[in-house]
């Protein structure tokens, strides 16, 4: 679908692309703007990649390409609020995994630079209606924060899932700073039986006091780093001549409260510490990977802190928790008045993002909220809601055209537009499907 326009002048190329590709009239569809109620038999006029008009009576102005969508539904493209897509190809082949960098503090690193636009995962994820992703530079552990990686692993970038180069994919270079809150890590032996099998584990045991000391040392490291960054910020503001330091330089927008700090904290204890730290340092934060907020949920709501939830397809953290604890967590967050979005925190399973939201909807989350959590809420949390996240006049045309509810597993995404440009929905999966369907 993508036409490679060979042109000497990039300006000309852009003009050509614009002329033939990102202006069209999509008509006779049911439009779900997300920001408002659905509109039956509506049309959407897209001019130069932006939504010019929506309504039941939209007249095409002059010669414009018509996209017929009778009986189909139009939704905003979905946003995955955290995934290392493009940074990791095959988990078990180390050379293909580019997440996580050595060292505790790497705020100067930007995820998008390292993204491989040709990753086989991108078309697969795209095919399920996901148009953009917050690409996270650090490892995102299974709900426990990036325990194995850095404390501050770098800047997470918002990117479109289509483009020849990372520059073409870029939405926001530095949407957030990724940080993991240190965890008090104690290997937990469940009853005597496990230990009977593996007494060797006993040798590796740490007492709670030791584990807590280790954690406090890590927290102190974070505090020291922020203090040093603040001194740098002050010195720079006062016009003193200082040795430039990329790490502290990268921290300035965070310290100014302009760039959100995305803190991974799963359990109540870490969440409370992270909230207190953010309040002391007057930071703008987003909590990520929240699993068991407990009573801290009220605090999260009171302080208006947005949350990024990981996959709902997990077992509870604690043995005695109800089986549906991970399924109902989004509903509980919603009831408490917390704004949240979903993230896959994975590569190949990023395609399941809509079904994470669907699972939450099946367990008490109102449907509209479920849909928002993968579209408008995400755009609001990352500060791009003036351009993305819903179907509204003036926003970019990141659209998906489906034959039904996109959170439903059986629904097919028929068309996709990123900034008004049609996107190829072929992927390795569809290629293999065709190949083996045609097998004699």
């Amino acid at each position, binding site marked *: 679908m993508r036409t490679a326009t060979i042109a000497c002048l990039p300006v000309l190329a852009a003009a050509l692309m614009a002329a033939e590709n990102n202006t069209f009239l999509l008509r006779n569809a049911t439009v779900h703007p997300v920001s408002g109620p659905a509109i039956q038999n509506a049309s959407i006029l897209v001019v130069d990649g932006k939504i010019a008009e929506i309504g039941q009576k939209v007249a095409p102005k002059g010669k414009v390409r018509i996209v017929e969508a009778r009986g189909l539904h139009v939704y905003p493209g979905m946003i995955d609020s955290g995934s290392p897509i493009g940074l990791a190809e095959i988990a078990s082949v180390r050379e293909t995994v580019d997440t996580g960098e050595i060292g505790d503090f790497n705020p100067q690193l930007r995820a998008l630079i390292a993204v491989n636009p040709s990753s086989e995962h991108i078309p697969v994820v795209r095919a399920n209606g996901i148009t953009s992703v917050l690409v996270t530079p650090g490892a995102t552990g299974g709900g426990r924060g990036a325990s194995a990686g850095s404390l501050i692993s770098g800047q997470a970038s918002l990117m479109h899932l289509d483009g020849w180069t990372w520059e073409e994919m870029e939405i926001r270079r530095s949407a957030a700073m990724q940080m993991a809150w240190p965890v008090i890590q104690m290997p937990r032996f469940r*009853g005597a039986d496990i230990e009977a099998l593996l007494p060797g584990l*006993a040798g590796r045991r740490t*007492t709670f006091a030791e584990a807590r000391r280790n954690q406090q040392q890590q927290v102190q490291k974070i505090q020291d780093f922020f203090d040093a960054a603040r001194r740098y910020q002050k010195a720079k503001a006062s016009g003193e001549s200082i040795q430039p330091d990329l790490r502290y330089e990268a921290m300035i927008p965070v310290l100014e409260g302009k760039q959100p700090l995305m803190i991974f904290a799963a359990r109540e204890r870490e969440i409370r510490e992270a909230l207190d730290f953010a309040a002391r340092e007057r930071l703008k934060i987003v909590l990520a990977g929240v699993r068991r907020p407990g009573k801290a949920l009220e605090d999260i709501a009171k302080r208006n802190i947005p949350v990024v939830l990981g996959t709902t397809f997990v077992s509870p953290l604690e043995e005695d928790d109800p089986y549906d604890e991970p399924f109902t967590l989004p509903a509980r967050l919603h009831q408490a008045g917390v704004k949240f979005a979903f993230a896959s925190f994975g590569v190949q399973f990023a395609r399941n993002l809509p079904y994470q939201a669907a699972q939450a909807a099946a367990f008490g989350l109102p449907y509209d909220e479920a849909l928002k959590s993968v579209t408008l809420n995400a755009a609001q949390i990352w500060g791009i809601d003036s351009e993305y996240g819903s179907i509204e006049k003036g926003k970019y045309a990141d659209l998906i055209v489906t034959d039904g509810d996109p959170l439903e597993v059986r629904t097919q995404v028929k068309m996709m537009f990123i900034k008004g440009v049609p996107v190829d929905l072929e992927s390795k999966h569809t290629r293999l499907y065709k190949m083996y369907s045609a097998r004699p």
Partner: protein
Amino acid sequence: MRKNLLAALAAALLIFAFLITAALAETVHWTAIRDARIVPVNGPVIEKGTVLIRNGVIAAVGAKVDVPASAWIIEGNGLTVYPGLIDALSTWGLPQAAQAQPAAAARTAQPQQAQPQQQQQTRSWGPRDRPGTFSWVRAADQVQLSDARLGQARNAGFTTAVTFPRQGIVAGHGAVINLGGKTAGDMVVAPDAGLYLALRPSGYIGFPSTPMGVMAYFRQLWLDAAHYREALALYAADPVNIPRPAYDRALEGVLGAKRVLLPAADPVQMERMLQLAADLKTPAVLYGAVRGYEMAARLKQTGTPVILNVRWPARDRDADPEEEESFRELKIRDLAPTSPTALSQAGVKWAVSSEGLETPRAVLRALKQSIDRGLKREDALRALTLTAAEIYGVADRLGSIERGKIANLVLADGDLFNDSTRIRMVFIDGVRYLPEPEAPQAPGAAGRAPSLSEEEEQ
């Protein structure tokens, strides 16, 4: 000439023979414990009676016993005489290096460096490397009188222990030892109590690294041993034509095993071990069994004896205060002390191990908890004495107060399981031992003492 020579020879022989009998039958030592309450375990309690000891062996027990004039009389008024207690799975008497590693189901924090595993640094690739195998090691060759824990054990009323080496996964042969004597050799009552096996896939590098692998390795080892025995027999029948099999100490050690001790902390592991014992065609004794309350019926069905670990699970002293404990854990913790009752009611032979407990005395306290939860006192006492002797095949010499048995006795000023009761003295092989001052920290305590820093005490 010749006559003289013969006469001299005859005289010499006579003297020699006399010396031997004299050596075997020196002066007879009699000791009598008089007017005491006697609990013989194998029979009814004698409210007021006498135990007569002749050269370290019980000569007579009863309400009326004729005491020789030369006997040393112990006034037993107000005292109760019990058979010496037996720790059925222990490391007492072994040098600290030879015993390492926590027992099955004992929640201990033992640094791995405590293992004498320097020779194990090479990676093991398969059964041929005999990983973690020390089947030629015998506790009987290693016991020492200098072990400070012996005194501690005697203070608590223990006179006997079945002590096992601990290293790797085939640790070696245990020995039934008395906890006193003039020389280390005096201690050994039976040098072949059984071969101790552990499922410890992380004690060394390489194969086997999972419980399944460990069990497969055990099977292989036994198959190899059977093959070795056949090869030796063939060679013995025809040493001219049959090549001489290479001597293999690991297999020799396996062939000499009367029984195997296998870890069974929970029902699943028990099933695995019962199957393994059947595969090895060797009588098994299971140890651990903290969840014996779930395992009693099955153990009865298979007739397998159990050495119960009475270190009842408890919340770790160094646990995370915010950790929510699961119902399962709380249930196990609550029901573990009922295991002895369940085993007794089912008619399972069970004895007791001090493994993982801070002091030998704690064994009695742990059993007292079970008594408070319905265990009969006589059942608890039998497990500590006669049943343990039966399991290890030494009940003809130990475990009760009857004529002909080794004079291992405990004299206490009250019921053994009452906390206020004091052990006044013990007899081991008829020799009296008085209580010793308690060491502040028992070296037998497995694992580190929790480090109580200031911040923890707040």
